[in-house]
């Protein structure tokens, strides 16, 4: 049980370091790092507090506290993935609209250029 808690602590610390490093290099925007950081910090706190872990196990209904923690963390990360799917979908919609707009504007410009060339 202790080894699993230690592993979860190391994992959460690694995740926090990775997110901070990505933020520093601008690989991830601040607004999209908040969900990951919150999940990683919650995992760190829970993995170091036996009382909190046992309380969580009672709520979830799983007798083994670290297992309850893992199940909870998986649920949180699934929610984070879902949130990012919404973000990606919004970005794709915007990308399609922009691509179409660029093509249409380019078409208008080309048409004007060709008609002015014909006149002159």
């Amino acid at each position, binding site marked *: 049980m202790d080894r699993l808690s230690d592993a979860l602590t190391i994992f959460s610390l690694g995740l926090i370091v990775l997110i901070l490093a990505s933020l520093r290099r601008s690989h991830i925007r601040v607004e999209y790092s908040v969900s990951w950081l919150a999940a990683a910090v919650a995992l760190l706190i829970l993995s170091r507090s036996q009382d909190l872990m046992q309380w969580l196990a009672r709520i979830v209904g799983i007798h083994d506290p670290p297992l309850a923690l893992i199940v909870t963390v998986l649920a949180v990360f699934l929610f984070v993935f879902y949130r990012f799917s919404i973000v990606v979908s919004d970005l794709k919609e915007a*990308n*399609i609209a922009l*691509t*179409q707009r*660029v*093509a*249409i504007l*380019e*078409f208008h410009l080309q*048409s*004007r250029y*060709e*008609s002015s060339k014909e006149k002159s």
Partner: protein
Amino acid sequence: MLRACSPGSLLIIVPAFNEEGAIEAVVREIQDVMKDTPVLVIDDCSADGTAQAAKAAGANVLSLPYHLGLGGGVQAGYKLAFELGYDYVIRLDGDGQHDPRYIPQIYQTLRDSNCHMVIGSRFVDPHAEYTSFARSWGIRFFRFILRPILGKAVRDPTSGYVGVNRQALAVFARSFPLEYPEIEALVVLQRRAFQFQEVACVMRPRKAGRSTITPGKSLYYIVHVLLGVFVNILKFERHRWRR
């Protein structure tokens, strides 16, 4: 310069992706049938010379800077046609499967009927059927699914040989399915109480290139389209309840 000049103006749009081998013949065939009607080829960021071949044949070309897929390309054409003030748009595929000889009939039906959409259908005339075994079963399946949703039978729901009037154009310029759009587009129109009609067409084998729907993608196609159909039903109902 491309612009709608008179009431009842028609634009023919041809979405194309890597159709260098077929597009020139398709455009020339359309021009032979519809002499003074402008043709707009939508080049979906082809890697070959599709855009150049279409221009050489005398078509206007809308070049997308990024590959959007069939629905995104067709919608770009609808948006441009709507902005330019066209009253009717007929869409043919760039692979040569849609025979342009049926354009006058689709156009006439659009003008004379109160329909918002006219579909060139392989199955109105039972003797003119051309499709693969797997595809014909897929079409039967979607006919069965769509019958209660549309409130009337549709014989060829997967046909991309489609004409629309300006009201449908306004809807599609705002909202059009991205992938495999034909079936979902029917549901989008039905939710707005728009009418459609089918006219008999004979489809031909493609002139060049390969179909995007491979046997491996067929299952994905069915799941995707089914989901799209039901999402469109839910989307519009929610919108109506809010008002």
